[in-house]
Structure formats: structure tokens, C-alpha cells
């Protein structure tokens, strides 16, 4: 009798574990499938000409150079605006802030900022940067919008990276009459640097794939030339993918998959860069 119950319990366990494992497979397979399928379908379209030429026939032919360039400009702009203030905010929270209501408010704001939908950042950017600051539908307005969105992530990762720097290093520096800022600048930041960079690279890669905000603050579908100044309009990969996938009739499928592949490669290569930095610094931790 006892043996029978044990058996049925074992069978239950086996069935349950199979289901759990199935859940894992369901979560994992689409990722691999999407990557492989995109490579297979789009790989043929991605030629040197595709990467280096302007689009023609509303994107049905030619290349996607301006979209690639535009996306890199956006990443650069986001980096320029989000990195200094984000890291400084991380420094404030870890090194200067006291445990008071203001600090709690800042942390609350950061946590909630991280959950604000991207389209809302689009509305914010449209109203503030495009209209109020009169930057127009421009690279500048879009970069600032994406930087606002990236801010929460940059602050959070900077804060964690700075917190991980041992207190002993700070004390060693302060104890020989080095000022607080110098200690932060010469001891804390160099130590926290890999962690900060990991977070920033991730945030930039998110910005590269973001579509909704730049849809609102005015990415262009087709432009005859590359942006010459921050006040020019721009094309961007994710927006280009959206338009050719949804709005252009009689679009050759292979080109759409090609655009998708390029976007995926850009975004995932930055993700991998972040992962590589993280692994590398973890190895260095033997020190």
C-alpha cells in the first residue's frame, strides 16, 4: 500500500516537473526561433549596398543607411544627455544624500519613472522639447526624450555599482585628508566604472530599439540626406521597421526582414557588450 502511494506521488512529481520544464521551453524557444528565423529570412537582404545606400521607392529598394546613422546619432545623444546627470545622481544618492524625506522622494521618483510607459515619454518630449523649447521635430528633441526615459535605468545601475565599492577604500582616502569629491572622483568612480558602463550600455541599447517616443517626437520615414545638425529631422531603424512593416504597400518581405535583422543585431550586440563587460569585471574581482 505504502509502495503504491509512493509510486503515485513519484508519478505526480514527474508530471509536474515535465510541465515546469515545458514552461521553460515555451519561454526559451521563441527567443531562439525569432533570432534564427530573422537571420534566415533577412540575411539575404543584408548586403553591403543595403547598409550603405539611401532607400528608394519608399523603402522598397535601396538601402537603410540613413536609418542606421540616425539610430547611432540617437544613441549618442541619449548617452550625452543621460550619462553625466545619471551618474551624478547615482553619486548623490550614495555619497551625499542623507536618509531623509528628500532622498526617499528621489528614490520613489526613480522607481516610478522606470515604470512610465514609453509613449508617455513621447508626449512629454513633444510638449516640452519639441514645442515649449522649440527644438522642433529634431534629433535633439528625440535624444532628450530618450535620455529622460533612460535616466531611471542609468541612475539605478550607477547607484548599485557605486554602492558595491567597499567602504574601506573611501575611508582610506578620506583619512589622509583627501576631500569627499576627490575621493569619489579618484577612488569610487574608477572602481564603479565597469558597473556603470554595463548599465549605460544597456540603457543605450534600449533607446536604440525604442519606437513609440520617437514616433511622437517626429522621426521621419524618408529623408533625402543625413541629418546635418542636432536640429535636423532624422530616420531611425525601429521607426523604419514599423513603417515598412505596416504602412508601405507591396513591400518586398525580404527587405522588411532585413531591416528587422539589422535592428536586432544593433540592439543585441550592445546587450552582449554589456554582458561581456559584466563578466570581465566579475573575473577581475579576485583582487
Amino acid at each position, binding site marked *: 500500500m505504502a509502495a503504491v502511494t509512493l509510486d503515485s506521488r513519484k508519478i505526480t512529481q514527474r508530471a509536474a516537473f515535465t510541465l515546469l520544464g515545458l514552461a521553460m521551453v515555451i519561454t526559451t524557444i521563441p527567443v531562439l526561433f525569432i533570432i534564427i528565423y530573422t537571420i534566415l529570412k533577412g540575411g539575404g537582404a543584408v548586403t553591403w549596398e543595403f547598409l550603405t545606400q539611401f532607400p528608394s521607392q519608399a523603402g522598397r529598394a535601396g538601402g537603410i543607411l540613413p536609418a542606421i546613422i540616425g539610430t547611432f546619432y540617437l544613441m549618442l545623444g541619449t548617452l550625452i544627455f543621460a550619462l553625466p546627470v545619471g551618474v551624478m545622481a547615482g553619486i548623490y544618492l550614495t555619497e551625499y544624500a542623507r536618509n531623509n524625506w528628500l532622498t526617499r522622494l528621489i528614490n520613489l521618483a526613480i522607481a516610478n519613472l522606470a515604470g512610465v510607459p514609453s509613449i508617455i515619454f513621447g508626449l512629454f518630449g513633444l510638449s516640452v522639447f519639441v514645442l515649449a523649447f522649440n527644438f522642433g521635430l529634431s534629433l535633439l528633441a528625440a535624444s532628450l526624450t530618450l535620455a529622460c526615459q533612460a535616466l531611471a535605468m542609468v541612475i539605478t545601475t550607477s547607484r548599485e555599482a557605486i554602492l558595491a565599492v567597499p567602504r574601506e577604500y573611501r575611508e582610506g582616502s578620506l583619512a589622509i585628508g583627501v576631500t569627499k569629491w576627490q575621493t569619489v572622483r579618484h577612488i569610487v568612480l574608477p572602481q564603479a566604472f565597469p558597473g556603470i558602463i554595463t548599465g549605460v550600455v544597456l540603457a543605450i541599447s534600449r533607446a536604440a530599439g525604442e519606437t513609440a517616443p520617437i514616433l511622437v517626437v517626429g522621426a521621419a520615414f524618408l529623408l533625402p540626406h543625413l541629418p546635418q545638425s542636432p536640429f535636423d529631422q532624422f530616420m531611425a531603424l525601429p521607426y523604419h521597421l514599423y513603417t515598412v512593416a505596416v504602412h508601405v504597400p507591396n513591400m518586398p518581405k525580404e527587405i*522588411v526582414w532585413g531591416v528587422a535583422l539589422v535592428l536586432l543585431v544593433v540592439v543585441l550586440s550592445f546587450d552582449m557588450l554589456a554582458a561581456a563587460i559584466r563578466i570581465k569585471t566579475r573575473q577581475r574581482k579576485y583582487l
Partner: protein
Amino acid sequence: MCHWLNRSNKEGLATLQEQVTAATVPTTGLRRRLRLGERFIEVWIFLSGLLAIVVLLGIIAILLKEGLPIFAHTPPWKFLFGAKWYPISDPPTFGIAPFVVSTLMVTLVSTVIAVPIGVACAAYLSEVAHRKLAETVKPIIEILAGFPSVMMGFIGLALLSPLVQSAFNLNTGLCGLTAAIMLSLMSLPIIVSVSEDALHVVPKEFKEASYALGATKWETIWHVCIPSALSGIAAAIMLGIGRAIGETMTVLMVAGGALAVPVSPTDPMTTMTAAIASGIGNAVRGGLQYQALFAVGLILFILTLAVNIIAERVLERQKRKFAR
């Protein structure tokens, strides 16, 4: 011994006092210095610290300023529950019930799909799977979190919608269900990782106690681990919901875009995010439609804020539960 301390205590101290007062003490180098550059940087640091608050308050202010005026045209009640969205008719009608219902429907369906799979996946990774397997699978799931939403929209459009169309025998595969499936895929990474963290902090003693009573591994997971991690899992679910509510591109591309109040998930529909994204380009700045779309943004913002705050509260409680 120092000479002056050889004497009796009192005498020694007196001598000390004399010496101190007598000595001409150098005051150089201890006076507070200005260090202007440093002060400047510290002000910058402080202002940067405030920036998160500034941006969040700025978002709230903008949504209120641009969105509230619509309620002079359409009362809040009618705005929220009106079933007709005719922004360019004469006179225009602004009822956002179709968008609200679509958002709730898509979110609900995607949550129903994603939660069991996500939690089961987390349980498998943290309790059952070999370390090596888990270490391989986790980065793959992280990649999923990195997929741009427009990419997921495109996949839904190109691959999933034909499947849904034929499976449910629909006129179009671009419907709420297709969007919900894609959204569930997109919220899986956060559900898995937060649930896994929650399962991870369940004290080993709990599990050992269960094994000691003769329970199998599965019984321990089901009766001990998951109940103990419940609040963490709840937080994971809330975060997943927050993500699904706010997602724009995927639903814009695959949910179908119909403006009627949807009855079933297999209807084409327009969520609040998709309504803003598709309408804002054509809206006249400061016009009624522009105001109405910002008001939709305001409601969306409040909704996600509420979900996130609940998630944080729950997570906080989970952390305190096993804090030792």
C-alpha cells in the same frame, strides 16, 4: 615617561594647561577653505539627484496641463465611459471606453497566459533544473527582455497573426488575442526573474523541514516554496501587468486598430497606448483631439503608477518577510 606626567596628577594637568596656553599655536592650514571647484561640482551633483523628481513631476504637470482642458468639452464621466471616439467629426465626440476596455482585455489575457508559464519557468529554473542548464537558459530569457517592442510587433504581424486567424477562424489575425500573446512573451522575462528572486530567498530551513517530513521535491515546491514566495510572485505579476499596459508598438501593430468597444479578445481593437501613438501625429497642437490624447495619457499614467506602487509595496513586504 613623558617628563611632565611624572608629577602628581593635579600638578601635571596644571603644567599642561600652562604649556598649551603658552605655546603659540599655528593656525595655518586648518581654516576652512573655499574649494570653489568642489562646491560647484557638489551643487551639480545635488541638482542631478533632483532630476528624477523634476522629470516625473514634469510628466505629471504636462499631462495635467495638456490633458485636463478636454474635460471642459467632455465631462470626465462621458470621456471615460463614452463608447464613441470620433475626433474629427463635427461636432467631435471623445469617448475612450473602447481604448480602456481594449487595454484591460489585452492586459488580462496576456497576464493569464504569462503568469503560469513565467512562475512555472521560475520554479523549474530555481528548484529543479541543473545549475548548468539554468545558467544557460537565464541569459536567453534576458535576451527576450532586450528585444525591441517594434520587433515583437513585426513578429506578431508576420508570423503569429496568420496562425491565430486560422486557429480561431477569424476575418483577420490582427486582434487583441494576437497582441496579448506577444505581450505575454514580452512580460515573461520580468515575471521569471522577479519570481525566481522570490523563490530564491525562501529559507532553506523551510524546505529541509518539508523534506524531513517525507515530502517529495514537487510537494515541497508546491506546498512550501511557492506559498512562501507568494508575495514576491505577486509583485512579479504586477510588474508584468505594468509592462503590458504601457506597451505601445506591439499593440499598435497587431491589435487591429478597430475603434469599437471590443466584446471578445479575438476582436480587432485599439488600446490606450495605440490610440495615442496613432492619433498624436494628426492632432492639431492644442486642439481638442490633442487634449483628449493627453488625457488618455494621463489616465494611462495613473494606471501604471498604481500598478507599480502596488508592486513595490508587495515587494517591500516580501523582502521584510525573510529579512534576517
